[in-house]
């Protein structure tokens, strides 16, 4: 096929690092399916070699290689490749997520949501400094619930700014953020300790 590719499992790149490993490293961290060309650019190998290695990995994960079948599979969706839980285990995953995601938001999640609602756009570290606790996992929950969304990344720091979604407005029974009851008088008092006075 291409000159710098050996065979099957043992496909290696020019620099000697196994191409399959490099591809797996990228596949492990991507959120969205990745196209062959982008993947080839990421691992620094020709598209043809990447395609061949992907095919090997698909077979491998499906148990047609030397190892056992995996609980995940490599699928091409919408022109890109991504790791998915094998369909056989969908029920297992659904049960697990059901157990992980309680139907009600915790007090911590609600308070964080309130801070984001009144102070948006706001970064995670700004919320953390107002709440005086780390809010990473709570922000993940709120994102997963579709109550907040990533608005934009700060041009300088790259920190992501968050805001609330229409889903939240629907839950609150209001049409726009302007209808949120004002809380300014008390906020003014409390604002001293915080960075800048952008609170409404």
């Amino acid at each position: 096929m291409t000159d710098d590719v050996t065979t099957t499992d043992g496909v290696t790149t020019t620099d000697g690092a196994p191409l399959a490993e490099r591809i797996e490293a990228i596949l492990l961290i991507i959120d969205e399916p990745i196209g062959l060309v982008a993947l080839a650019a990421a691992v620094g190998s020709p598209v043809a070699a990447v395609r061949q290695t992907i095919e090997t990995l698909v077979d491998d994960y499906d148990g047609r290689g030397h190892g056992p079948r995996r609980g995940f599979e490599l699928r091409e969706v919408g022109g890109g490749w991504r790791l998915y839980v094998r369909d056989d285990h969908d029920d297992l995953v659904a049960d697990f997520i059901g157990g992980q995601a309680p139907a009600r938001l915790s007090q911590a999640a609600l308070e964080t949501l309130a801070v984001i609602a009144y102070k948006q756009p706001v970064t995670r570290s700004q919320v953390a400094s107002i709440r005086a606790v780390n809010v990473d996992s709570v922000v993940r929950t709120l994102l997963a619930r579709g109550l907040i969304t990533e608005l934009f990344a700060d041009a300088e720091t790259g920190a992501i700014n968050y805001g609330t979604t229409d889903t939240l407005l629907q839950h609150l029974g209001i049409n726009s953020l302007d209808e949120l009851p004002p809380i300014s008088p008390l906020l003014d008092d409390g604002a001293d300790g915080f960075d800048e006075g952008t609170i409404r």
Partner: protein
Amino acid sequence: MAPSPDESSVDTTDAVDPATEESGFRVSLSNFDGPFDLLLTLISKHEMDITEVSLSAVTNEFIAYLKELDDDEELDQASEFLVVAATLLDMKVAGLLPQGELVDAEAVALLEARDLLFARLLQYRAFKEVSTWFARCLHREGRRHVRAVRLDEKHRKKTPELVWSLSADDFAALALLAFAPKEMPHVGLDHLHAPLVSIREQAAIVVTLLRSAESVSFRELVAGVQEPGIVVARFISVLELYRHAALSFEQLEPLGELTLRWAAESWSDETLASLGADYDR
């Protein structure tokens, strides 16, 4: 790896990152020439008498050393030096005291205090050394990549429907709660459960009591007061009034009765209003 305790008290380069240590602050005294850290090690091992070390010479050298550092490094090094210098000074005070025959209890207590200071220095160094391990691990792990991928749409749809019961007003109330400044209390009165006490108010009471009598003892001044916070505030207000030369006090023996007399030549309510401003947040 971990700073091995035995080695670290003998050979400093083994316990701490040699790079930072060797480029660190060196001192050159009449009886010692070498890295500052080694000096501390020798003192802490009692192999060098603290009283022989000229703190002012060390300080002069340190200031010269600081001038050659860049800003960030300087700040870290300077704050560290202050900590160590303060401890050294304490040790020196203890070290200069006579320690021949341990007859009186006071001398014994002072010696124990000196040991405690040695211990404090050792402890500080132990944490400082182990902090390099923290820095190393945090740096190494900061480069790792963990799988943290958003749940795939198919599975997200299966999460149980969110139960939402808050109205917009409830939500606003919650926001108020969330925005209320978390008390990141200053050390001091925050530890007391008592409500905050105003030093100014207490001073007003003290002024009234003092002006209505020839002399008042502090005991009388706090008679009937139950809350420790008020006693403290009243005492602070006495000190503040003393600063303003508004009163004089007399104590005939240590821990004896404290007698206060009004001594202000000119006193106005404005002075009272600005009293204790240092204590305002």
